[in-house]
């Protein structure tokens, strides 16, 4: 057994605990415990980082040999973005979903790696391809959650339900800003991922299901960015973001020809 696996499992438990803590805080309509859970998340994230380093050192490569394995670095990117955003914007509440999601992804990859890790003849091209796509998908995941929160918050404001969860949710303007910045970070990563994938395949583009969905994903994110730069905001823009997110999830999960 790779010595990194218990550490990964422990960090996953940390994510689960902190996620449950944040959810409990939302249930109690109190954000007082959020700073404490942030510390737990930072500690789990540090352990996660160390586990990935140990794994790479002992196995000779990052856990990117299969889709199941890539969930470990994906969870790492999700938490990295979440923690960095939380330092600047008050979006701790997104941890109620980001942390359990990071738990599920890390636990899933631990389970996959427990059964034996795959071998990969990883060249720099493959690393760039996989890691940039993982960064892109991590950004899209968090941005889509912000978009969902935008709709929830907008609905509460419309209905004038200004108590309970309304107080825990960030302002509409903040959610809009955060998702915009996440897409700004994720979109170039997606483009680099696609370009490096094309390069690995010798410049040949196969019109498989995954490739079509990837193209659709990038088109929707392009529309989003174009509209946002042109000054658009609000529900319509967030609807485009959610549609793009659905395609992003599909393109990540669909089996591609190069799996």
């Amino acid at each position, binding site marked *: 057994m790779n010595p990194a696996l218990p550490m990964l499992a422990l960090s996953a438990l940390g994510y689960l605990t902190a996620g449950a803590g944040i959810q409990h805080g939302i249930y109690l309509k*109190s954000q*007082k415990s959020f700073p404490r859970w942030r510390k737990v998340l930072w500690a789990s994230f540090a352990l996660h980082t160390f586990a990935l380093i140990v794994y790479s050192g002992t196995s000779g490569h990052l856990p990117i040999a299969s889709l199941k394995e890539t969930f470990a670095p994906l969870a790492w990117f999700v938490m990295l973005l979440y923690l960095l955003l939380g330092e600047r914007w008050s979006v701790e509440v997104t941890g109620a979903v980001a942390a359990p999601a990071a738990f599920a992804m890390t636990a899933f990859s631990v389970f996959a790696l427990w059964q034996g890790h795959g071998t990969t003849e990883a060249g720099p091209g493959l690393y760039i391809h996989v890691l940039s796509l993982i960064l892109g998908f991590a950004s899209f995941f968090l941005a889509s959650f912000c978009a969902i929160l935008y709709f929830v*918050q*907008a609905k509460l*404001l*419309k209905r*004038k339900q*200004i*108590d309970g969860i*309304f107080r825990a949710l*960030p*302002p*509409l*303007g*903040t959610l809009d*800003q955060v998702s915009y910045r996440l897409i700004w970070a994720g979109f170039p990563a997606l483009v680099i991922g696609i370009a490096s994938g094309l390069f690995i395949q010798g410049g040949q583009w196969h019109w498989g299901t995954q490739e079509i969905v990837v193209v659709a994903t990038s088109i929707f994110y392009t529309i989003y960015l174009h509209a946002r730069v*042109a*000054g*658009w*905001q*609000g*529900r*319509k*823009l967030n609807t485009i973001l959610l549609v793009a997110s659905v395609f992003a999830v599909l393109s990540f999960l669909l089996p591609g020809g190069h799996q």
Partner: protein
Amino acid sequence: MIRSEAINPMDKTVVLIGLNHKTAPIEVRERFSFSPEQVTETLNALQAEAALTECALLSTCNRTEFYAVPQKSVEAGMDTLTRFMSRNDTLPPSEMDKLLYRHQGAVAINHLFSVSSGLDSLVVGENQILGQVRRAFIQAQEASCTGPVLERLFPWALRVGKRARSETDIAKGASSVSAAAVELAQKIFGEMKGRNVMLLGLGKMGKKSLKLLHKAGVNEVKIVNRTYEKAEELAEQCGGTAVPYEMLDEALVNVDILMASTGAPHYILTKDRISKVIRHRRGKPLFLIDIAVPRDIEPSCGDVDNVYLYNIDDLQAVVDKNLARRHAETQAVLSIVESATTDFCKDFHGRKASEAIVTLRNGFDSFRRDELEHFRTKKSVSAEEMQLLENFSRRLLNKLLHGPTTKLRQLSEGGATPDELLDSLKLLGLVEEEDNP
């Protein structure tokens, strides 16, 4: 109000006399109120009073309170404060007694902590009182009216006030309609910097909200009124821009927050009108605040995408919910105040015990050093023997004083007053007796 059995000995330490919105109506409170200049004058006059050693005066629109440390007799101190409190008022003593509350010791300390934490305020948890307590303390310091007791008590009260606000939700949420409007605007837009505001009509409430929005950092203020000259006048005052009434729709395209407070008897902004404006806004949220009665904005405007409409009742509902949340926190704040009162009293006694212990040890140590000096002058005692004597005497002193030191601490923890602690030292001849007059 307070479990005071353990802290009765504080009774001679702090006294309080005052009235507030609970004991006196506004027409009485205004007669007893002190302007900042009068506070300074009064504190200067109180300095000459023999009955008091320290004094502070807290005078706000809802309360006038004297906190003082009596010289010897609590009654004499209270009488002096009552005299200063009533000034030129000719109310009979029985009437005065109904209006005034008089507390001493732990109850007075508890009262100050309740005041600073906002529990005793008209609007529970309001923040202004913390600044007012700080100002009262600074004024007392400037008038040289503070001493060891008030120098500890007031900073302690300020800490209790801050703790109550940070550990509970006692000060959370807007407590007025205009503040609620700003709070909602912040919940829609996040940062207020760079936001454009429009004031439609020149209602009093609108102006008040505008002031708060200015404070929150809004970018541009546009003022629209049927009478353009009046709009211009207000625009000049608040550094905004007057917009002709006919240009309302065009100006609205670039506005984030609109506050309507005209005296019009019908809707000024209809759903059709707002829908047309929204088409040019590229989905940017528009916050409409209708504080006019009768209303200026058609209620169905709130159905338009990205438009958030709140009228005066909606804002009042926000305030009511906030105040209910604050009231729900009072029990938690009360326990903070209670524990802070107990801690303050213990700390105060602890300090007095420490002072007494230092006096005790220093007294005996001077005896020890005198005796050692006696040996040092003798030539027959070598340096090594001197060192032995030094160590021996130190150890002996420590052993002898261990019992009395522990007893002094126990006495202090048991509630012995500083005077009682000093009395025990007087028996040993370590503290000089005061001459009787």
